[in-house]
């Protein structure tokens, strides 16, 4: 059970203190985890982080899940190098520059946090993530093969993913990105040197504590982390189609400098 208290700090942002289960840490009860035939935690199913699509206007969740959307210590703002700060500010002031507003693939890890669900299908040698947004998919081999060599790895929006298990945590190493997507947050651009390590830790209450660590030596001074709590929908759902390009009127009506 989660207890929560909120108050407002001087900048007007609410600060909340949550008491919640740990990230599969020393006090977790691994025997309560849903597991596959091989004994690994079973991540299969439909998931979403924050937002309305699965959880409705009231933010309805299943009993015992709590209502926090993130966990762990605040990662603070992304650690951009000095030269990049003004570029972030300029990009953030004009939504037309946002790759997602342009209907491009959301990229990894940003796609995990948009309010649109995805399905994980876990099989013995590969794990698949099927995103409703733009019908994006990721195929994550877990059989031990490495990433293709840089000469063979064409830069992509979602990157090349390789999975492995670290105890009961599914770890996905992602590289081979282009520089056409944003990280989570307004104007948070990255370079083609982006390297992401995702950790999916199933909890006894059948939620996932998700953590993505982003390194980008061309724009960051140090790694930056993004954390979410992923939940199943409160009732039966299915992943549907959502093709963003078909009627994107926003680009011609957005007013920059909001």
């Amino acid at each position, binding site marked *: 059970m989660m207890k929560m208290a909120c108050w407002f700090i001087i900048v007007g942002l*609410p600060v909340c203190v949550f008491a919640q289960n740990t990230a599969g840490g020393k006090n977790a009860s691994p025997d309560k985890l849903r597991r596959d035939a091989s004994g690994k935690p079973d991540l299969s199913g439909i998931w979403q982080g924050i937002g309305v699509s699965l959880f409705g206007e009231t*933010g309805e969740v299943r009993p015992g899940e709590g209502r926090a959307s993130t966990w762990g210590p605040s990662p603070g703002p992304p650690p951009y190098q000095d030269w990049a700060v003004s570029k972030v500010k300029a990009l953030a002031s004009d939504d037309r520059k946002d790759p997602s507003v342009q209907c491009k693939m959301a990229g990894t890890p940003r796609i995990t946090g948009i309010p*649109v669900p995805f399905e994980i299908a876990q099989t013995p040698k590969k794990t698949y993530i099927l995103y*409703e947004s733009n019908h994006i998919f990721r195929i994550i081999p877990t059989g031990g093969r490495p990433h293709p060599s840089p000469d063979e790895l064409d830069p992509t929006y979602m990157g090349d993913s390789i999975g492995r298990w670290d105890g009961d945590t599914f770890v996905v190493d992602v590289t081979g990105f282009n520089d056409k997507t944003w990280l989570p947050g307004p104007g948070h651009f990255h370079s083609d040197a982006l390297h992401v390590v995702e950790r999916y830790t199933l909890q006894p209450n059948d939620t996932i504590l998700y953590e993505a660590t982003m390194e980008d030596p061309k724009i960051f001074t140090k790694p930056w982390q993004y954390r979410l709590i992923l939940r199943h929908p409160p009732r039966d759902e299915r992943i549907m189609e959502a093709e963003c390009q078909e009627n994107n009127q926003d680009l011609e009506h957005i007013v920059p400098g909001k």
Partner: protein
Amino acid sequence: MRTAFSRLVILSGILLNAPHVFAHHSFGAEYDSARPVTLTGVVTRIDWSNPHVYIYIDVKGENGQVTSWALEGHPPNTLRRTGWTRAALKETDTITVTGWMSKDGSNRMAGREVTLPDGKKLFLGPPAQ
């Protein structure tokens, strides 16, 4: 015992039910939260499309002049999950919608709540941010 698993974590105040946002763009990029509006009109077209559903209505003013408006809402899958079906609304229906005006001066609004001909109310889009 569940409480034995607990620890305190400090977060910058993001709750699950807080971000009722457009998945596609920020509210403030296109709509003005300081300019709420309520319109009643006749449905002339429904675009059940991505990244947003658009409902078009003709609104008759006090002088009898008819003005066409576009109402932007969540994408179709979100509306389906929050209670809409395609059969809920059809052309020639008269509806009332609350929402907020566009910033660019066009006859567009971010739709918040639609009152259907039978009086049923459904959310069309997120609240102003």
